[in-house]
């Protein structure tokens, strides 16, 4: 069963509140849709997805994420739909998925599932820099779609 990945900020999930309601800021939706990424069982595409997320940033930073088995989300009655991502990582965009038509209740349920049974991951800014540099060297990123401020930090 694949995993679903969501970019978050772990500092926020570690504030008091088990977790704090501030953690919900990491789950901003767009017209009821939540952006997720599908990670293969063997996590072979994990670095590609993290690189895609980093390549979409305005500046170099660490990337935090939660991963949760897809079936746990589906058991919440949430509809998932493959929707191509919009990052400079053209080949990784196919792993993008939207959780559709979320309500406040289902969003809170996703947050709870992530917090209770999600797998936490983090790549430091240095690790991200290396991933982006390798991806650029391998022509895996569309340079023109990247923010100039980020590219400047990679020089």
């Amino acid at each position: 069963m694949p995993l679903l990945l969501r970019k978050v900020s772990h500092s926020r999930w570690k504030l008091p509140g088990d977790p704090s309601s501030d953690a919900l800021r990491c789950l901003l939706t767009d017209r009821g849709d939540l952006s997720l990424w599908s990670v293969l069982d063997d996590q072979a595409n994990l670095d590609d997805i993290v690189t895609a997320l980093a390549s979409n940033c305005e500046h170099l930073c660490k990337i935090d994420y939660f991963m949760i088995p897809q079936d746990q989300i589906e058991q919440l009655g949430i509809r998932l739909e493959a929707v191509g991502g919009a990052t400079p990582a053209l080949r990784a965009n196919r792993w993008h998925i939207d959780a559709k038509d979320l309500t406040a209740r289902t969003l809170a349920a996703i947050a709870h599932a992530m917090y209770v049974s999600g797998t936490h991951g983090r790549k430091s800014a240095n690790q991200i820099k290396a991933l982006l540099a390798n991806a650029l060297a391998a022509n895996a990123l569309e340079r023109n779609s990247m923010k100039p401020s980020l590219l400047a930090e990679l020089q």
Partner: protein
Amino acid sequence: MTTSGRDIVPYQQGLIVPDAPQFTWGTETAQIAASLYPKPRFSIEHLASESWSFYEATSTLKDAYHIARLGAPPVTVFGTGIPQSSVATGIRLYSLADIATDIQDLRRPAIVFGVTGSLAIGAAAAQVSAKPAGAPVSNTLIANFRSQVQNAEANRRDAFAVWRRLNEVALVSTSEDGMEDEFTLALKRELTRYGATLLTVFESLCAADKLALNTQAEALKLFGRIKHFGTRSRRLGLLTKFLGNQQAGIRDAAAVGLSYMAEPAALDSMVAAAAVESDPDVKEFMVTVARELGIARTNAASFAKGIA
């Protein structure tokens, strides 16, 4: 003669500033002041405080001004400290050695007292020296000093107001890693404007639990990321201090900030923090950052050796 409700002891003749390499905090400063001021009716207890705020430092310097003013004769007031204090206070800085030399050269009676601050702007000292009565009065330096103190106080008041606004902005900002938002842009702007004073006020507000934890976390990350040379060492000190915060989320944000800053000098603090960290995720990241800082330190040493 009184100022601020306290008695002023007449100046002592022939007092020389100890040419110590540096003032240390609190007690030692008080001892120095006591040796210079045998009847410690003026703010010795104040000097002994272990927890100086910028306001207290400013107030003490202001007291120096009052002593000078009430003492009638023309006076000279010097401040000394590490360079960051000039950012915060605008007070002209002299080294302790300079002051000692100056006093010796002038053979003036003098009162010197050190002012230290928890804000780590370093030691500041004020010297009040008197010329013989009847000499021409020149208050230019005092007027300048008074203006600087007033500016510093105004800056601090403004910085409090700025943080209140930033706290409100943070409440509605997305604060997504890697993206600028209203909060990060505003904080960058204000840090450039207020320098170390903004950091000092941040620390005060955090200690008083007056800033939302999410605001604190986002600010700490940005403190590590922003390129602002004038406050670099102050930000480094602040982030290092917050590695010991009681909230795991705040310690994590401080570690993230230090990873962005990539300052090898933070290595020892990071290793020490990792050793006692109770949250396994935060601990793991601290170890990662320590490893990266260790590599950076080795590279810096190799580079330096190559130059030599």
